[in-house]
């Protein structure tokens, strides 16, 4: 069940230290919020069923484990020179990732709910495909753009038809 836990090179210890700091802040923050929740002692007779108990416990474990992660990172040299060296993402990787994330947020966060679903979907699929196939060069670009537009329209139409008409699922 290690989906996503792929076999890449180990992270430099300073990244783990930074992660530990963020998680410690999260754990402590949640503990503080849990502490401020009402206890309902009058209703239950015991403070042990207070709403803050369970999240407070989880947050405490997260805080303790993040301290252990931080200490381990320090032991592995996070504070030594070179502790931050990491295999940086390639420029292409970062650009592709940024493009995919930006288009995804634009579609799901802005277009969906603003435009009719089929149109938002057609625009997104066209934009996504065109953006990633643009880099394949000028040869055949026009054909690829036309195919991307057709793919977008087909996806918008088919998804709307299948979900809304056949499976009676409400679309945004």
């Amino acid at each position, binding site marked *: *069940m*290690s*989906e996503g*836990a792929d076999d890449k090179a180990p*992270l430099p210890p300073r990244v783990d230290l930074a992660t530990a700091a963020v998680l410690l802040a999260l754990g402590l923050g949640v503990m503080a919020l849990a502490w401020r929740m009402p206890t309902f002692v009058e209703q239950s007779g015991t403070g042990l069923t207070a709403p803050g108990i369970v999240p407070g416990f989880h947050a405490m474990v997260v805080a303790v484990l993040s301290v252990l992660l931080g200490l381990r990172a320090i032991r592995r040299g996070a504070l030594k020179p070179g502790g931050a060296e990491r295999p940086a993402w390639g420029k292409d990787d970062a650009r592709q990732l940024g493009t*995919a994330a930006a288009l995804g947020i634009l579609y799901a966060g802005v277009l969906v709910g603003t435009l009719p679903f089929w149109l938002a979907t057609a625009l997104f699929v066209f934009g996504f495909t065109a953006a990633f196939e643009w880099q394949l060069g000028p040869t055949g670009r026009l054909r690829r753009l036309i195919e991307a537009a057709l793919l977008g329209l087909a996806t918008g139409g088919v998804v709307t038809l299948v979900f809304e008409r056949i499976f009676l699922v409400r679309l945004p």
Partner: protein
Amino acid sequence: MNNPITMLGDGFAHVFAGGAAFHAFWAVLIGIIVGALPGLTATMGVALLTTLTFTMGPQVAMLVLVCVYVGAIYGGSRSAILLNIPGTPASAASTLDGFPLAKQGLAGRAMGISTLGSWFGTLFGTLILAMFAPSFGEFALQFGSYEMFWVALFGIVIAGSLSGGDPLKGYLAGFLGLLVATVGQETNHAYPRFAFGNPDLAGGLGLLPVLVGVFGVAEVLNAMRGPAARAVSAKIDSVIPRIRDVTQYWRTIFRSGALGTFIGAMPGLGEDIAAWTSYAAAKRASKEKELFGKGSVEGLMAAETGESACVPGAIIPVLTLAVPGSAPAAVLMAAMMIHGLNPGPMLAITNPEFIYQIVAMLVVADMVKLFYGLVLVKPLLWVLLIPRARLMPIVFVLCTVGAFAITSRLFDIWVMLGAGLVGFVLRELRFPVAPLVLGIVLGDLLDKNLLRGLVLTGGDISPFFTRPISMALCALTLLAVLWAIPGLMPRLMGVFRRRPA
């Protein structure tokens, strides 16, 4: 009526009454395609198809989802053999011998072995499920709130320890998942935790939008990086399996089936661990160790049998304890809840025939998988060649629909986006995702049972440690934690070992 054979017969009759053949054929096909495409996992497939099953009856919906699950785990082997990229993480072990076989011009034979191994594996696991799930379900009826609390905690700990990678990060991921599950109104006092006055947050973070985000959106982002994969060959030899492969390696098949089912039944481990363990066990016991990694038929058979046997294995704890054995099983469990089939110990009382219906569904799915394994070779090769720039936006659209459809709230789409981003970042930081998902799924179980137990005892925590089953589960949980501390177990063993005079 309570005769298992009669109930199994009734299970098949019930499943077939719902137009099983039609639904099984299209759902297994979708499963195989989802599994075969690198970047689309079985978990994502089951999560997305859950959306399509909202308006179906519970039995038909479960049949569709079981078929997708079985098909996707099998489908992953296609890309493992032809692309050297596991279609799902479960097929990672299959690349070791599947791809070398394909490079030797034996891609068809490799796919035949994979089909046969997978078919036997699921059948073996289903047999174990049919034999043990009902009696284990009856045993689980003795579990009260105290025991269920420990079951949930044990699931998180075991998934954190063994789901691959760093146990410390595994535990952190598990407890982050548990934290996420606490957002929204709690059951005792209806107090909205971490809602900050927002009514959407007070309703809690939907399980399906979070799972679609972690497994769908994060996978899309991941898939769009790096160079695209290419198939090893467009020419395929015969995929008809050879009888000799079965007779020669029957011990490997049974060993891998047993290991796969057992690992499946352990909370949160899943198909990839089952495949790797079966592969390692086969290599250790093999007379042809030197062939492993260079195109060993036995190695491929072991990996495929193990991962496919894990599917029914992972459903055993879902039905008996409401604890998923793998990530796709977690989504399957969420779908069962959506359809009003409350999995867990009470299932043996409220709906005992459902266990046998699941057995019937698994058998139907396995048979359809065998059929497609033998006939669906060329079209799948074509599917594998679809450019990711054209496939991934469609997957993203399906994720968005899947997140929205359950409650028709735009808020759920934002939850999906947030979960996808967090899932992606956690993966980049080498956190295993399985414990995170298990934490989100089990959070409610843990929370409710802890609070219910404390209410029943008026705040006394001793029953959590003194009741016999609770005590055993508590000891198991502690043992799992100690096991994961590097170097501690050998030292402890050393203390008890007699020193030579």
